[in-house]
């Protein structure tokens, strides 16, 4: 039963990673490691930036 629960949890984590839920955590980890002297972007601003970047630099989707 534990194995099943663990499997479900990791499947959920995988789906979230593919969908991009963890983008802010990833950014935060990168920022703390590489630019510890500057404060990171707040979460809300990060997500806005992320969407607006797509406006400036559109990505293709395939047929």
């Amino acid at each position: 039963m534990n194995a099943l629960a663990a499997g479900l949890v990791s499947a959920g984590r995988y789906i979230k990673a593919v969908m991009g839920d963890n983008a802010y955590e990833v950014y935060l980890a990168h920022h703390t490691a590489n630019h510890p002297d500057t404060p990171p972007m707040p979460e809300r601003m990060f997500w806005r930036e992320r969407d607006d970047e797509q406006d400036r630099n559109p990505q293709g989707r395939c047929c």
Partner: protein
Amino acid sequence: MSKDAGRTEGGPAADPEASVIEQDPNLPPVAVPDDEREAEERHWTPLKIAIWVAIALLGGVAWVMLAVVRGETVNAIWFVFAAVCTYLIAYRFYSKFIERAITRPDDRRATPAEYKANGKDYVPTDRRVVFGHHFAAIAGAGPLVGPVLAAQMGYLPGTIWIIVGVILAGAVQDYLVLFFSTRRGGRSLGQMARDQLGRVGGTAAIIATLVIMVIIVAILALVVVNALGESPWGVFSVSMTIPIALFMGVYLRYLRPGKITEISIIGFVLLIAAIVGGGAVAATDWGAALFTLDRTTIAWGIIVYGFIAAILPVWLLLAPRDYLSTFMKIGTIVMLAVAIIVVRPEITVPAFSEFADDPAGGPVVPGALFPFLFVTIACGALSGFHALIASGTTPKLVEKERQTRFIGYGGMLMESFVAIMALVAALSIDRGLYFAMNISAANTGGTVEGAVAFVNSLGLTGVNLTPELLTETARNVGEESIVSRTGGAPTLAVGLAHIMQSFIGGVGMMSFWYHFAIMFEALFILTAVDAGTRVARFMLQDTLGNIVPKFRDASWTLGAWICTAIMVAAWGAILIMGVTDPLGGINTLFPLFGIANQLLAAIALAICLAIVADRGYFKYLWVVALPLAFATVVTVTASLYKIFSPVPAVGYWAQNSAFRQALDQGEESFGTAPTRAAMEAVVRNTFVQGTLSILFVTLTVIVIGVAVFRTIRAFQNGGGVNTEDPVTPSRIFGGSGIVTTKAEKRIQKQWDALPADRRRVKARHE
């Protein structure tokens, strides 16, 4: 671990310049040492041998059942076994060979995701997550539509091309483009073309990409229009995706930013509600009156929508619908695979149909099996569009060079499997029904009687279509009529509904499954239309920027609007042309879609050819030359047929002159065109289609010509310029395949044991 552990004695897979890469002595190895990896790969335990023998045998039996035995009926499970076993063998042996011979990845080199890491688009990401991203970006409606139309030839030609084509051509292209772009800082296909082929070749490649993008968007939109025409249920539920996406966008922007999966699940539930609600709305008088739209109205709707969607901010409409589309993609594909394996439908379609050796082809798509089968099925076997994803987006996430085989080659195998499942779904429905749905209204008159008369007059063995079957199927799927629902999507939806109802819900659920399938195809396509328009606008802005620099300014809204309007007008014109075409639209236009997509593949492969030649690996040049030659022969022949064939159904110009002549002679109707206005429309349409054919083939011949010229020059010089980014030593570690090997686990343990401050924080994105 000494620093030598990361260095190698220059095994066969090592790059000559790689020996200079010095690894940080304070870190555990960043790569599995070559000799250890080699030993592991070459170590054949009895169990491993037994597994591979079993896979080979099962695949062999499946192919015998499909290609040799060809019984009265064939069980769908054999398609699954033939495909999966062949993929496994190709992945393990052929892609490994390509890795040793051509790509020669070196995990001691940092990837752009590592050396350009910015925590946003350049992020070293877990390989399985990148695989998911990449697959979601490459797979769309294409592999669901092409195989359906190609089913007119029988089941075998399509099956062989999808499976053999992917392992020798499609997956090779995706893998090589992904790897080469990764070695070049994630540069786009256009930039690589410029670097590798010079100005003429590069410019031709960029123009070809732009034109191809327009035609692909137009024909995808045409598929949606055909699926929604005269279908109030479909129109209602697909329109509902717009408010659902807007709600999701607002939710993510203002209510709970970043909760992507959460809102996708909410969106999915709303979507299901929209499908169920669509049935109820379509059953009411006002619903039927409001949402029964003819194809031209829907086409205009999509054009207006396409323009608005492309100028609205991404967060409001495109991004949320993209999340929904990704969510649906993974879900429905898994569901379809499970259903086919559980239900195992029997297939009664012959291996080769009456149309397989007819030079005029069949009534669904005109033209002989060679070359038209190979352009009808583009996505799933070889798709040039993938080269745009494999260069640019995906390379910025790849953690280690060696992972590109799993992501690039493996991702494409997955898409091929989707195409096989679509083929099985289309094959599982009654053959008479298949033709009644896919022959254009120009021949069936759009009526049950007309369809029955026309299909039965084709004289197909074992086909005896009854009007009852057509009306009953239409009633089961909740549509007024299913006659001449061309474009592939409705056929796939009927096939899927047919399979799914025996899995869940029975006949009563068929209408739900049908509209569920229409919904996800429309969702994929509308996302591709939006994104395609934006990318094409961006490319146009960039090109115009060479003349008027202001166009490059991203904050100049008017410029963006002008370019968007131009691109929408371009695909919109082709869409309207297809919808109003007296010859039936999709069957004349679909070959152009395939040709365009394959020409893009030829361009991508030509760039790969030049790169491989510049690296000096002439002995293995055939790995690229083979699919390139095939794609070139297929697309150039198909284009030439389309330009020069004297058969009006096949050649655009033959059709053009036949109708012009009829007009000159003062005829009031000709062929399937009932009026002079319709005849004039045919003349206009065939002129545009013929001109596009000439343009495509000319651009491609230029690109391939330049690539071949550069390859010959490189051969004479024993190699060429290295266009790779400079080598940066890697400071992170990651496994390379689906399963982590013993050696990888051992090294990973050393990394995990490192104190956190000495381990460079690697955003695992997991």
